[in-house]
Every structure is written in structure tokens, then in C-alpha cells.
């Protein structure tokens, strides 16, 4: 190999650019410089020609390699046996499915949880009707005598529409004395309540009925606290009281006290089926129960 000492720095520079020139990778301005130099420099022109000759020879030699037709056919046969995306794709597919399942079940669980929360909020909203009447009429208003009013007086206060319920409450509430029964309301609301105020187990317990005004208790798993016969029972702890509730076709029924939640629900489970049956039967009969038809005593009005 010869070692050259270029006299011209320009030749050395141009030759360093010849590879890029040959590959058409030079900028336009640089290409012009190279071309100008090549026009006037025979040595560099020969060098470019030599490099071009090698490249062309390489292209010809490469083209002489004829791809075997059998290989092409063999590849095509194998392609038709296989499905694309089988290995890498299937791994990705598994991930996609796993994430989708996670999102789906996560979504379902979240939705279920939200439904339960909504249901419990609805229950609390309905049971709050009974709790507010119990607190304002029985507890704060103390609208009951220390000695129980005689049953006849209570029947009179309840009126003929609701007098029959007095026996149901008495029978299904052993150990409790019915001190008072009347129709009352809570200040600020036109809603009326059939209110039985009882005493037993060292406390005051209210059995309250009120007409539904479009509201309903959600019959959903996770919201219903239990069943008594075919009646669904609901419970809530509100304003320091435990309340259990149920619904008939036209009424809500509540048992409200400061007894334990279990006791409150247990008492409600005894009362709910016969009360519901009586209320539904009355709703179906021509002599419909009508709270507005019952004389409304100011003495029975719940105090705020």
C-alpha cells in the first residue's frame, strides 16, 4: 500500500467527501464544490471513477445471485400454514383481554357499590319520615300521657279507618303498652302520620304509618336488611334513633326507638306482615283508608 502526501489540501478534503458524493448524501452546495474540483483535477476524477467502478461491479455481482425459486415456494407454503400475530399478537391479546376483564369487573363492582350507596341513601330518606315524627311528637312533644289512654278513646282518635290497626299493634307488640294513638303531623310538612306511642323495655317506641307520596323503598340486595314473610325490611340509624321500615301498596310503616338495631328490626318483623296485610286489604276495599278523613286533633300535633 502506498502512502501519499497530498500537496493539495483541497484534494484531501474532496476525497474525504467522495463516499458521501457517491451515495448522493452531500448537500447541494457541497456537491457543487466537489463537481467543480473534479472538473479541474484529473487524479480525483480517476479516484471517483475507480470507486464508481467498484460499486458497479459489486451491484453486478450481487445481481448475479439468482434467488432459488424453490425457496420462494417453500416460504409461500409455510406462510399459508400460519396465522399472523400468533405469538407476539396473542401475548398482547391476553393482556388486552385481562385489562378489559379487570375494567369490566371493576366497573361492575363500582357500579354495584354506587347502587348500594344510592339505595341506602333512599332508605335513610324514607325512614327519616318516621324518625322525625317520633322525635318531634313522642320524644320532644311528649304527646302521650303517663297512664295509657283507654282503648276506646284511642279508637276514637284514630277514627273508624285506622281503629282496627290498634288490635294488630297490641297483639304483635307484647310487653309494650300503647299509651297513645292519634293522627299527627310534623311542623312544616302537610304529611300526616298514624302514630302509636308505646312504652316497654324501659323506653318509648313509636309505630308510625304514613301514606306514600311517590316515594318507594329500593328492593335491592345490600340495601334490604331482612325479610319477614314476603315483606322486605329496611333499617337506618338516624338522629340517635334506630328505625326499621317496610312498605305496603300505599303506606310506609316504621318502628322507631332507641333500642338496638337488632331489636328494632325484630319488632318490625313481627308487626310488618299483619300491618301490611291490613293496609293492603283496606286499600283494595271500597272503604279506602283516608288520613284526611280522620279528625285531626291539635293536641296530637307534633311540636317542633
Amino acid at each position, binding site marked *: 500500500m502506498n502512502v501519499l502526501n497530498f500537496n493539495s489540501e483541497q484534494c484531501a478534503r474532496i476525497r474525504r467527501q467522495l463516499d458521501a458524493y457517491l451515495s448522493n448524501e452531500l448537500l447541494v452546495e457541497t456537491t457543487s464544490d466537489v463537481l467543480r474540483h473534479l472538473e479541474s483535477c484529473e487524479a480525483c476524477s480517476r479516484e471517483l471513477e475507480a470507486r464508481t467502478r467498484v*460499486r458497479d*461491479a459489486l451491484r453486478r455481482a450481487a445481481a448475479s445471485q439468482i434467488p432459488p425459486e424453490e425457496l420462494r415456494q417453500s*416460504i409461500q407454503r409455510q406462510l399459508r400454514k400460519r396465522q399472523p400475530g400468533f405469538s407476539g399478537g396473542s401475548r398482547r391479546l391476553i393482556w388486552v383481554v385481562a385489562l378489559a376483564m379487570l375494567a369490566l369487573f371493576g366497573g361492575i363492582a363500582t357500579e354495584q357499590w354506587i347502587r348500594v350507596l344510592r339505595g341506602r341513601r333512599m332508605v335513610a330518606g324514607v325512614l327519616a319520615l318516621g324518625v322525625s315524627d317520633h322525635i318531634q311528637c313522642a320524644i320532644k312533644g311528649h304527646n302521650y300521657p303517663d297512664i295509657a289512654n283507654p282503648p276506646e278513646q284511642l279508637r276514637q282518635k284514630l277514627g273508624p279507618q285506622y281503629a282496627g290497626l290498634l288490635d294488630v299493634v297490641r297483639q304483635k307488640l307484647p310487653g309494650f303498652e300503647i299509651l297513645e294513638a292519634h293522627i299527627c303531623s310534623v311542623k312544616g310538612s302537610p304529611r300526616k302520620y298514624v302514630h302509636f306511642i308505646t312504652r316497654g323495655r324501659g323506653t318509648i317506641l313509636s309505630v308510625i304509618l304514613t301514606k306514600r307520596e311517590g316515594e318507594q323503598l329500593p328492593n335491592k340486595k345490600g340495601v334490604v336488611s331482612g325479610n319477614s314473610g314476603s315483606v322486605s325490611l329496611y333499617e337506618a340509624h338516624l338522629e340517635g334513633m334506630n328505625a326499621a321500615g317496610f312498605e305496603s301498596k300505599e303506606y310506609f310503616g316504621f318502628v322507631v326507638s332507641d333500642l338496638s338495631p337488632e331489636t328494632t328490626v325484630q319488632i318490625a318483623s313481627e308487626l310488618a306482615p299483619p300491618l301490611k296485610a291490613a293496609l293492603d286489604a283496606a286499600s283494595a276495599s271500597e272503604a279506602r283508608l283516608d288520613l284526611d278523613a280522620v279528625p285531626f286533633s291539635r293536641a296530637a300535633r307534633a311540636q317542633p
Partner: protein
Amino acid sequence: MFFYPKVRVEDFETAAMPHFPDLYRTARLLAQDSTEAEDLVQEVYLEAWKSFHRFQTGTNCRAWLFKIFFHRLHHFRRRWAKAARVQALENSEDQDSLIAETPVPQEIRDEDVLQALGKVAIEFREVVLLADVQEFSYKEIAETMKLPLGTVMSRLSRGRKLLRQELAGVAHSFGITPAKDSPRAGESA
């Protein structure tokens, strides 16, 4: 497939098989023998078919196939070449500009070129083939081979010179005289 658009083998063949000769020639000029070359090309096509659902229609299928080719080649090369040899050759690059260009024989036969090419280290050979035979740009070569642009340029320059050296040696052994085109100092304007 459930999540991927349905791909037909006919579509794949239409897009990929026209590049079969290019891939085969490149493989044949890089591999030690035809069996290795055929294995390589076959693997490239099967790999490409498996991932054809990821190929974007309308983009450069040839560049995509060569990318897969060099990915597969990486596995094959472990059997072929020694990296240390390349490193030594690359390190000598700085001095290379001081060495005169080897004379090129006037008559170059295909077998001489193939024989000379076989003597060039594969790391240089593959860049020379992509640039001079397949006519990829420097940028495309860098992307295909996952190499820095500067490495592509230096390997191409070095590879061409090595090929020329080997070619002169092969031609000389067959009694072919070099052309009188070697540069002489001080001839430039």
C-alpha cells in the same frame, strides 16, 4: 384474530414477496453459505408475516423487511463474526485517510467481487451492501441497523476501502493488472 384487523396472506405476499430477491441477495452476500442465507430469508418472511398486522399499509415495506432482516441477522451473526476484529478495524479509521486508495483492476469479474466481499468483515459488508447495492440512504441504514449515523458513514467508508483492497488482491492472484488510475500526489488543480 379478534382485536386485529383481518390480514390475508395474499395481501402479505403482494406487499412482501417482490423484495424477496433483494433480501436473498443481501443474505447470500452476508452469510457463509447458501443454506445459511436461505434459512435467514425464510425466518425473515415468517417473522414478517407474524407481525404483518402491525405493518402500516402504504409505508415502506422494503425498509420494514430489512429491519426485520437485520434483527434476525443479529442472531445469525453470533455464529459468523468476531466483534473484536471490527473494533480494531474501526479504530484504525483515523489513519486510513493517509493511506493511498488501492488501484482497482480494469476488468472486474463477478466471482472476484464475491470472493473479495467475502473477506470483508461482516459489519462493514452489511453497510456496503445496504448503501451500494440496495441504495438505502444513510438515515435508512442507521434506522434499519439501529446504528448511529456517524457509525454508518465510517463503516461504509472503511468497508468500501476494504473491499477495494481485497479486490486488488484477488485480481492480482488471477494475474489481472490494476488500472493505472491510482492517484498521484500533486495532480490536482
